[in-house]
């Protein structure tokens, strides 16, 4: 067993505390009204913390950082719009809904249109949005478990089917992704089924501060060691293009072989001596021609008993042969110090070898570098225009040595080929939004309009979607009055705003310090950067990295466990009370409904686990964004129009919501399946045809992946048209309803309305 004890214990404590608090709070609040009343007895500060705690899910805690790392600037729209969505909710929807006294969207749908039927229609989107929202939480769980047990040898401890296997079927160390999903899913499902996990204010408020602590403390420690946010970002411009490789130019390079090294101080000494040797190299030696390059000059520098050789200085030369030589020697464990490699000029002359096809020198260099890397050598940046060519097994040693010598900035590691180039990563319209257009083979300039379309659709989805999330509105009632509710919202915006500054910092630092995550896929990819990044501190201060990584793991557990249980409670509630209690068996007894609640929790939990197991390859944040898009196309138009337009009829509302919501759902499911098919290499004529279609129609692909830009106007448009056609169905007491929605609560219209309403029946 090889598990970091700090990480394991922090995580275990969080899991136990979450489950315990769930049961503790369940005992304290037996009914739904207890849940709301409990909220009313606490102060604005506590309430604001609780709302924020409820809002910050695995997407906020892990996904934003992961996506900033993988996609750069474009991913910043997510945290910003998650926070801005709250503003939109505050401006247009929260006040009226609070006055109306509807706790959930189905409640509102029923009350606004006096129609239990509409309630049943409205409730189905609780399920759709809920399942889309649980998938990323499940991915968070699987990723965190896979991280904690990544180097644990569980062979012999666990049955064979629970182990990760390679392609040949040989058991590997570590835990496969699905085990974490199943474990967390099962534990929370059991908890909800047994009656735990009803989030009360105190627990949720505690959750916020736990998440805030877990994201901010590690990042401040990391920044104090490796440099602050701005410095980290600035590093992405230090080298243009993709890491060390593209900065190569073979003109006037001095190559110094400094032999093999054994210990850490050895590496430092070797590098130092190589540098001082360079200064002793006579000028004429730096202009050796190609023939002489291959005969090594032995240097005189021998102070630490190392053999140091001047390999050659290239002025013109054929890069292939030089690199062929380098790779041979690097393969033998020698290291080269490469000095004064100027930036690769774009306009390289073509070298024409008689009888051969013309190749640009850039291509020749690239081929040589490829050969070098296949031979096991790798190129490290060693400061301005200086590089080391070392064997890959010695990479870390030399990096550490260079850092202690101050040759490299102290933090940045070379990026793997798979990572997006710096320029693309830090600029708007990067990999996230240009994916479809890039696949279609468009040029960089032609991609930009598609990228703009993607960006706008994403913004609309996120800003409007917040208002349509089933579990957010409820919290507006946990305040004594409207003024307190507004003050609470102000604090919520501040609390979540501050939180959202931190996850992108993890993404930026992850790019600089943990670039190997670009090579991992699924649960081993950038989604775990928040968990793994603090661990690099171990190389500076023993144990500190493990403790901080344990803290972020604990925060991740808090995030996905609380969100998953909250979603499970609201989805199960909808299933038991609305679907079963009102549609299937309207005459059922409370005991039957209670049994149905337990059964429903297990059923929904099982479906969520199965769905969660399928989505390892999709990014956490992306999936949450998709849930927002569905909410934006269904519930947002319903709420917005019902609150502000008295001409709405039930038919208009239902047709608009269903059309917008279902079309968005269909498009999103389709693109997600295509993405999964590509990543998992599923094959099939239909899948291939779809993929071909996307390649040829990038605009349609973008509109399907991010449907909000057309689905929201479509839903609103349909609502207006159908409502105008069915004008006679406008509820007769519409003026009273609008008055309750808009008149200040102090006028006491709500009670009046409810009495009148009951009298009317």
């Amino acid at each position, binding site marked *: 067993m090889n598990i970091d004890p700090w990480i394991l214990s922090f995580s275990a404590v969080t899991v136990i505390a979450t489950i315990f608090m769930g049961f503790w709070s369940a005992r304290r609040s037996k009914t739904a009204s207890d849940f709301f009343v409990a909220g009313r007895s606490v102060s604005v500060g506590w309430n604001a913390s609780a709302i924020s705690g409820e809002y910050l899910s695995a997407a906020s805690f892990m996904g934003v950082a992961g996506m900033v790392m993988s996609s750069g*600037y474009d991913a*910043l*729209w997510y945290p*910003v*719009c998650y*926070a*801005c969505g709250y*503003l*939109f909710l*505050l*401006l*247009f929807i929260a*006040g009226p809904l609070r006055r109306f006294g509807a706790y959930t969207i189905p409640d509102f749908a029923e009350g606004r249109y006096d129609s239990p039927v509409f309630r049943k229609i409205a409730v189905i989107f609780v399920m759709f949005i809920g399942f889309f929202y649980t998938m990323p939480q499940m991915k968070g769980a699987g990723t965190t478990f896979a991280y904690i047990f990544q180097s644990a040898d569980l062979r012999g401890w666990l049955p064979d089917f629970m182990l990760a296997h390679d392609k040949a079927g040989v058991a590997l160390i570590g835990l496969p992704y699905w085990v974490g999903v199943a474990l967390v899913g099962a534990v929370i499902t059991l908890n909800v089924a047994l009656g735990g996990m009803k989030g009360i204010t105190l627990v949720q408020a505690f959750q916020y501060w736990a998440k805030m602590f877990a994201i901010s403390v590690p990042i401040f420690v990391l920044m104090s060691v490796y440099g*602050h*946010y*701005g*410095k*980290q*970002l*600035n590093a992405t*411009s230090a080298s243009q293009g993709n890491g060390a490789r593209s900065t190569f130019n073979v003109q006037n390079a001095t190559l110094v072989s400094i032999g093999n090294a054994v210990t850490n101080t050895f590496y430092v000494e070797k590098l130092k001596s190589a540098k001082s040797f360079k200064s002793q190299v006579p000028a004429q030696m730096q202009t050796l021609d190609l023939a002489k390059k291959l005969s090594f000059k032995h240097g005189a520098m021998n102070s630490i008993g190392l053999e140091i050789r001047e390999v050659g200085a290239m002025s013109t030369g054929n890069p292939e042969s030089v690199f062929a030589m380098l790779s041979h020697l690097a393969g033998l464990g020698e290291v080269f110090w490469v000095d004064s490699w100027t930036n690769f000029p774009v306009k390289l002359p073509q070298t024409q070898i008689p009888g051969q096809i013309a190749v640009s020198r850039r291509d020749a260099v690239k081929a040589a570098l490829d050969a070098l890397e296949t031979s096991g050598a790798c190129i490290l940046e060693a400061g301005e225009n200086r590089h080391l060519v070392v064997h890959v097994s010695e990479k870390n040693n030399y990096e550490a040595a260079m850092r202690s010598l101050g040759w490299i900035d102290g933090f940045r590691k070379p990026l793997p080929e798979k990572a997006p180039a710096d320029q693309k990563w*830090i*600029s*708007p*319209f990067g990999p996230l939004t240009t994916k479809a257009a890039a696949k279609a083979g468009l040029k960089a300039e032609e991609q*930009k309009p598609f990228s*703009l379309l993607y*960006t*706008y659709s994403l*913004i609309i989805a996120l*800003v409007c979607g917040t208002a349509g999330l089933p579990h957010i509105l409820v919290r507006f009632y946990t305040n004594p009055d*409207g*003024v307190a509710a*507004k*003050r609470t*919202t*102000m604090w919520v*915006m*501040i609390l979540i*705003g*501050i939180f*959202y*500054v931190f996850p*992108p910092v993890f993404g930026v630092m992850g790019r600089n310090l943990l670039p190997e995550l670009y090579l991992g896929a699924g649960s081993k990819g950038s989604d775990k950067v928040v968990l793994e990044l603090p661990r690099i501190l171990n190389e500076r201060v023993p144990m500190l990295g493990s403790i901080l990584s344990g803290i972020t793991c604990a925060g991740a557990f808090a995030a996905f466990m609380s969100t998953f249980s909250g979603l499970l409670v609201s989805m199960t509630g909808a299933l038991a009370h609305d679907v079963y209690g009102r549609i299937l068996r309207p005459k059922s007894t409370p005991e039957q409904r209670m049994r149905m609640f337990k059964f429903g929790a297990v059923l929904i939990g099982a479906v969520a686990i199965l769905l969660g197991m399928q989505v390892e390859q999709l990014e956490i944040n992306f999936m949450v964004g998709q849930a927002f898009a569905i909410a934006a196309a269904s519930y947002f138009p319903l709420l917005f129009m019902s609150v*502000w337009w008295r001409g709405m009829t039930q038919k208009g509302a239902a047709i608009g919501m269903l059309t917008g919501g279902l079309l968005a759902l269909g498009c999103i499911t389709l693109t997600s399946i295509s993405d999964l098919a590509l990543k998992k290499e599923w094959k099939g004529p239909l899948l291939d045809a779809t993929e071909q279609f996307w390649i040829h129609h990038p605009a349609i692909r973008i509109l399907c992946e991010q449907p909000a830009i057309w689905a929201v106007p479509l839903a609103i448009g349909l609502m207006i048209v159908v409502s105008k056609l069915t004008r006679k169905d406008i509820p007769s007491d519409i*003026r*009273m309803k*609008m*008055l309750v929605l*808009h*008149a*200040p*609560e*102090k*006028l006491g*219209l709500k009670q009046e309305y409810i009495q009148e309403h009951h009298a009317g029946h």
Partner: protein
Amino acid sequence: MKNPSSEKVDIHSESFLHTLMRRQLKLSTACAVTFMAVLLGLPLANYFLPELMAKRVLGFTLTWFILGIAFFPFVWIISYVFIKRSIALEEAEVEEVSREGAKEAKVGHE
């Protein structure tokens, strides 16, 4: 309402509801437009002024600084203004109604 030209505030009247919704919508829309102008303007700035937006500020590119940091306080300011105004608006409405209500009550007693 029997006499629409009367200045009396009848909370069940069409005109009261109309003014009420209008005032609220005006405030919400004003805040939303300010916010949307910046939110939707930023991609346009990125699109048409890429060099400016790529300028370095304290190590950040300008656009990263705006979106990653400066946007949050901006949203706070808008929500602060909205909350302040909407509370004032509600109080004014309540006062209007209760003043009229008191006058009416006085008239009733005489």
